[in-house]
C-alpha cells in the first residue's frame, strides 16, 4: 500500500512558469510534458473508461487530451493554477477530466451534447496506477532538482551508481578515483536528495 502522496513540488514548475522569457516558456512546457505525460495519460485513460462505461480510448484521443491539458496549463492566456485552492495534482486531474469531457462531447451528435454538469468536477478515486505514475514523475522531478543542486561530478557518480546501477568499483576505476571517494559522493548526493524531498513543497 503506497504511503500518503505528498504535494506535487512547485519549485521547479513555479520558477519556470513565472518567467517572462519566451525561451523559458518553450523549455518549461516541454520539460513538464516529459516529466508528467505518463500520469496525465494514465489519468485520462481511467477517466475515459469511467465516463464511457468501460470503453478503451484510442491512443490519438488520449494524446489529444494530454496536449489540451498541457497547452491550457502553459498558454499565457490560459487558465492558471492557484496554489491556495488545492494541490497541483488534484488540479491537473480536474482539468484532465474537463478536457476529456470536452473532446467526448465534440464527438457526440449535437442532440446528445448536454452532459450532466456534475461530470465536469466529479472525479473518481485515484487508482493505484495513477498514484504510481504520479509518484514516478515526482521522483523524476526530485532528481531534476538534485541535478541542479550538487556539483556535476557528484551527480555523475550518483547517476552512474544509483540510477544506471553500475558497480561502484567499476565507476571508481573508470573515473580514476578511490572507491571511498565514490562512496562519499553517493552519500552526499543521497543526503541532498533527502533534504530536497523534505521541503514543504514535497510534503
Amino acid at each position: 500500500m503506497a504511503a500518503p502522496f505528498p504535494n506535487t513540488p512547485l519549485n521547479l514548475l513555479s520558477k519556470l512558469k513565472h518567467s517572462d522569457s519566451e525561451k523559458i516558456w518553450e523549455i518549461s512546457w516541454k520539460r513538464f510534458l516529459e516529466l508528467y505525460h505518463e500520469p496525465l495519460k494514465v489519468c485520462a485513460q481511467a477517466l475515459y473508461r469511467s465516463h464511457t462505461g468501460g470503453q478503451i480510448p484510442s491512443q490519438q484521443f488520449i494524446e489529444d487530451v494530454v496536449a489540451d491539458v498541457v497547452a491550457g496549463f502553459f498558454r499565457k492566456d490560459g487558465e492558471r493554477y492557484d496554489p491556495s485552492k488545492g494541490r497541483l495534482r488534484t488540479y491537473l486531474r480536474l482539468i484532465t477530466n474537463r478536457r476529456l469531457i470536452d473532446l467526448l462531447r465534440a464527438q457526440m451528435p449535437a442532440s446528445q451534447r448536454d452532459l450532466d454538469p456534475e461530470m465536469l468536477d466529479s472525479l473518481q478515486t485515484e487508482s493505484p496506477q495513477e498514484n504510481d505514475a504520479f509518484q514516478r514523475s515526482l521522483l523524476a522531478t526530485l532528481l531534476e532538482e538534485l541535478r541542479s543542486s550538487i556539483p556535476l561530478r557528484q551527480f555523475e557518480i550518483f547517476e552512474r551508481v544509483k540510477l544506471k546501477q553500475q558497480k561502484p568499483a567499476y565507476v571508481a576505476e573508470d573515473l580514476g578515483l578511490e572507491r571511498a571517494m565514490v562512496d562519499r559522493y553517493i552519500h552526499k548526493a543521497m543526503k541532498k536528495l533527502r533534504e530536497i524531498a523534505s521541503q514543504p513543497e514535497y510534503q
Partner: protein
Amino acid sequence: MKAIHYLSRSEIPLSPEEESLLSQELASAYHQDETSATSREVERIAEKIKARMTRPAEPEPPSDNL
C-alpha cells in the same frame, strides 16, 4: 511506490530491503524520464501542444469555471 516516504523519513535508518526498494524506484523514475526525452509519443504530443499554444484561445463555455 514508497520512495518519497523513505526519502522523507530521516529519523529511522532504512533497512537493506528498504534501501534496495528506494534504489529500484529511483532508477525506474530516472529511466522513464530518460525514455520520455526521445519518445515518439511525447514528440507527437509536443507537436500538438505547439499548434495549440499558437492558435487563438477559444472562449470558455460557462460550465468550465474553475
